[in-house]
């Protein structure tokens, strides 16, 4: 499907736009900005996706929704592995993450990976926040294009 290409290009260009416009010293701020952009997208997306669906049973049910339906809508595949310690930490593993597939598999671009994952992290956080789950989402890459998202639930 051709229209997936424009989303990928747009995502790439958003990243380089943000990095172009900020100084070398505040690159952390760029990550934060990308994350908050993702948050906003995740929030509005999940509102549309769950418009017609029944209430989630519990937290795990919500997570399954993120792994299956949400992932399927956004990345055209499901999460490959979901693990939890049943104490509020969930690890979602995607063996072939869409925004990393265009990069070479070696170690060469490992440093560049965080900026391509900030927006997706924000999207997960935004989606969950609108489903009533407050959390912190971080991502980790050990071998491209596989990627692990860790979701840590914040209980106030």
């Amino acid at each position: 499907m051709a229209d997936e290409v424009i989303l990928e290009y747009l995502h790439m260009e958003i990243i380089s736009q943000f990095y172009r416009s900020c100084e070398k010293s505040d690159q952390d701020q760029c990550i934060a900005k990308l994350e908050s952009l993702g948050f906003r997208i995740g929030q509005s997306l999940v509102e549309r996706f769950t418009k017609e669906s029944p209430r989630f049973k519990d937290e795990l049910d919500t997570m399954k929704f993120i792994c299956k339906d949400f992932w399927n809508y956004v990345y055209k595949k499901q999460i490959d592995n979901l693990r939890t310690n049943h104490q509020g930490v969930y690890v979602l593993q995607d063996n072939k993450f869409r925004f990393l597939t265009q990069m070479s598999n070696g170690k060469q671009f490992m440093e560049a990976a965080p900026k391509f994952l900030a927006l997706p992290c924000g999207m997960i956080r935004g989606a969950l926040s609108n489903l009533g789950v407050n959390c912190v989402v971080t991502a980790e890459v050990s071998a491209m294009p596989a990627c692990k998202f860790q979701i840590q639930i914040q209980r106030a």
Partner: protein
Amino acid sequence: MSRQGTRGVDLRKVNGELFSLTYGALVAQLLKDYEDDEEVNKQLEKMGYNIGVRLIEDFLARSNVGRCNDFRETADVISKLAFKMYLGIQPVVSNWSAAGDEFSLLIENNPLTDFVELPPGHSQLNFSNILCGVLKAALEMVQMEVDVRFVQDTLKGDNITEIRLKFVKRLEDAVPVGED
């Protein structure tokens, strides 16, 4: 079972929504960063330019179109193939100038503005200005310098969204120094 309701969602449509929402969030962020409509227009065009440079490769690879004989044919390819392929819409080509070097693309349902309402005080903002950049860059890569700008925008209360394209000149391939 529990999530049956959402499975019936049209994936293609979802993809479009994801795109519109991503773009909307981007514009909102740029407005916050630059606080100036003109500057945002400029940045959007620049981003579009960078996308267009790559997109033309993808387009030529997928569409299998050959050379266009004249600007009218180019206009047709842009509207019937390119817009259709990437945004799923087919703008109407019209308002040709007498010399045949200028035309308008009339867009009725601009997917970029699906969920958008322009707040007051942004009369200078061309929300979809990224399209201008994309068109300009893509055409430049096939040796055409074209001037692209927004004339009307439904977001600003016009009846239709209109992008005007003006052919400027044919670009010649520059041979690198020292080669014949």
